[in-house]
């Protein structure tokens, strides 16, 4: 049996908001604005997430995958990246996407079923969410491979959940990364459930991180609700990748507070006590806010101001997304090929004629 600490993973910030001795060491060199930024992002992402769930209930967006509870994992890892780095997310990384530079409006458009929501602004190296499980893992390995072959410094990150570690693409991606020593980071948010199936049904190993050994890459298990530990571990993995030391598999042990998506009922497969424990005792925002307050870096008034600011920004994004012009039906054909083959030109013309009546 693993000791409690090993189950949780590397931890710098304890649930009561105090730093461990290693945490003290990691905390000191971080610049004050970044310390505050950690919290601001977590807060904004949670407010966005809560708003998105309500929008789905109101029928204003489609089925949505909530991330509440996983803010620390996403914020800590994404803030350790640079703009030149590649991000290959699954469908739950709205927080990562925002930090990478995806406007909130675009994220909402995606969940409104609009393909425009897949396309980031120019220069943002963010892939659209991977809906099949684990398929983005080889993509990240390939992008990292290209960086290495071109002699560039950029690294690539694949984000995925614990369920993805059962798929062949996970093993193939990690194997390529090991064999070719690629500058890639595999970031697993082990939120304990793949829809309803618990982690114990995905693997007989105690951890995801130990699987790294099979591919001769580095594996780290970290408390996924501890933004400081996540940031530190990710920063180190990025630096290792940039300096040619190869890939890292990071397992962030966390929990999604809500259901898999708004279409599912988590009460069918999770015990209330378990969920309550994670929400009440291990919440990533509460823990970090305690630390900030004790250091005099955050206050009740700042909290109110920031929440108001975020809510305004989110409402603005909702307005923009809802008023975005609907593309004409012929947009179906817009980007299937670089140049439209004749048969598709004819299909598009038939659609035009239909619309003209």
């Amino acid at each position, binding site marked *: 049996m693993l000791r409690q600490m090993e189950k949780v993973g590397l931890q710098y910030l304890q649930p009561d908001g105090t730093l461990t001795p290693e945490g003290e060491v990691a905390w000191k060199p971080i610049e004050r604005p970044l310390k505050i930024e950690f919290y601001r992002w977590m807060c904004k992402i949670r407010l966005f997430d809560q708003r998105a769930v309500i929008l789905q209930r109101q029928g204003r967006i489609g089925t949505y995958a909530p991330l509440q509870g996983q803010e620390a994992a996403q914020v800590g890892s994404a803030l350790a990246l640079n703009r030149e780095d590649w991000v290959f997310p699954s469908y739950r990384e709205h927080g990562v996407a925002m930090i990478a530079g995806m406007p909130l409006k675009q994220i909402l458009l995606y969940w409104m079923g609009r393909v425009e929501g897949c396309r980031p602004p120019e220069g943002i190296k963010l892939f659209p969410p991977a809906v099949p499980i684990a398929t983005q893992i*080889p993509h990240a390995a390939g992008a990292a491979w290209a960086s290495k072959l071109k002699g560039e410094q950029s690294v690539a990150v694949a984000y995925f959940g614990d369920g993805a570690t059962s798929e062949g693409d996970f093993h193939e991606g990690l194997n390529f990364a090991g064999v070719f020593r690629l500058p890639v980071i595999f970031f697993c948010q082990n939120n304990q459930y793949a829809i309803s199936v618990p982690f114990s049904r995905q693997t007989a190993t105690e951890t995801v991180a130990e699987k790294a050994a099979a591919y001769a890459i580095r594996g780290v298990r970290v408390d996924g609700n501890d933004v400081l530990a996540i940031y530190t571990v990710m920063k180190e993995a990025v630096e290792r990748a940039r300096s040619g030391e190869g890939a890292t598999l990071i397992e962030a042990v966390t929990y999604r507070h809500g259901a898999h998506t708004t279409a599912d009922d988590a009460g069918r497969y999770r015990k209330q006590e378990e969920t309550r424990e994670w929400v009440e005792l291990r919440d990533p925002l509460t823990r970090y806010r305690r630390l900030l307050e004790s250091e005099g870096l955050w206050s009740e008034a700042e909290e109110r101001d920031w929440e108001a600011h975020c809510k305004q920004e989110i409402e603005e994004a909702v307005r923009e997304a809802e008023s975005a012009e609907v593309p004409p039906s012929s947009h179906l054909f817009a980007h299937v090929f670089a140049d439209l083959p004749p048969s598709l030109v004819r299909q598009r013309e038939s659609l035009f004629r239909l619309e003209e009546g």
Partner: protein
Amino acid sequence: MAQLTLIQAINDAMRIALERDPSVVILGEDVGKNGGVFRATEGLWKRFGDDRVIDTPLAEAGIVGTAIGMAVNGLRPIVEIQFLGFSYPGFEQIVSHAARLRTRTQGMFPATMVIRAPYGGGIRAPELHSDSTEALFVHTPGLKVVVPSTPYDAKGLLLASISDPDPVLFLEPMKLYRSVREEVPETAYEVPIGQARVVREGEDVTLLAWGAMVPVAIAAADEWAEKGVSCEVIDVRSLYPLDEETLVTSVKKTGRAVIVHEAPRTAGVGAELAAMLQEQAFLWLEAPIARVTGYDVPVPMFALEDAFRPDVKRVSEAVRQVIAF
């Protein structure tokens, strides 16, 4: 000009691509030191090195998936899948990602890549090595699918596929790898994707075929020529996009069509061609369009291969039927 086999022409196309564009890389199983199981990449590893001609682990999803990542990060990968029948572990990456990326990212991250795969029967290969499942890919929006049947076309079509901005599945008829030889220019040239080749002009029946079925169709045409029936033979060559104009023009001229492919019949590419022809040339047709295909059974082990694959006899019989109708 040199006399090249089809596989030598493919090798020559990749040499040119590697020489003129530093972003071109080849990746696959055994493509390096071994030069490919069919020797398609012979000599390229030695000449261009390990970073350009890459022996990968044995993992088709990994090969196609990493090639997609390479493509979006500025390389132009040419993937070799050892046999089309081995593409199925990588099928998800082809269908769910490579084919859709241009649409999903609204043109931002297209998967500009070529997937080469030997396919079809006729060489007495082991089980599962002789599949001809081009229809699976032709049915996938966002992919182009081409099949050369001559050394000249193989080089020109492969160079066109490599410079194409979209993902192209380049199918290589194994049976023809070394059975034909022809003059192939040493310089670079392209055979445009989306154009069929009129192999032989004729007046009475149009024979449509691709890959290793082209020589079978030609042989059947020869047989009927002796009996005074003139067959037009068309190598469809580009299965998607399709050169509908050349096909329709021919069928309007002859009034009869026989489609030959070695893949199973049901929902095969032949069904699509027949539907397209009846939509566009119905009033010119003198007889129902005939299909000569593999049967709807798993491609057999090679003891029964000849019974499965269309041959001259079966094609000739179909010609007789459409003439006699």
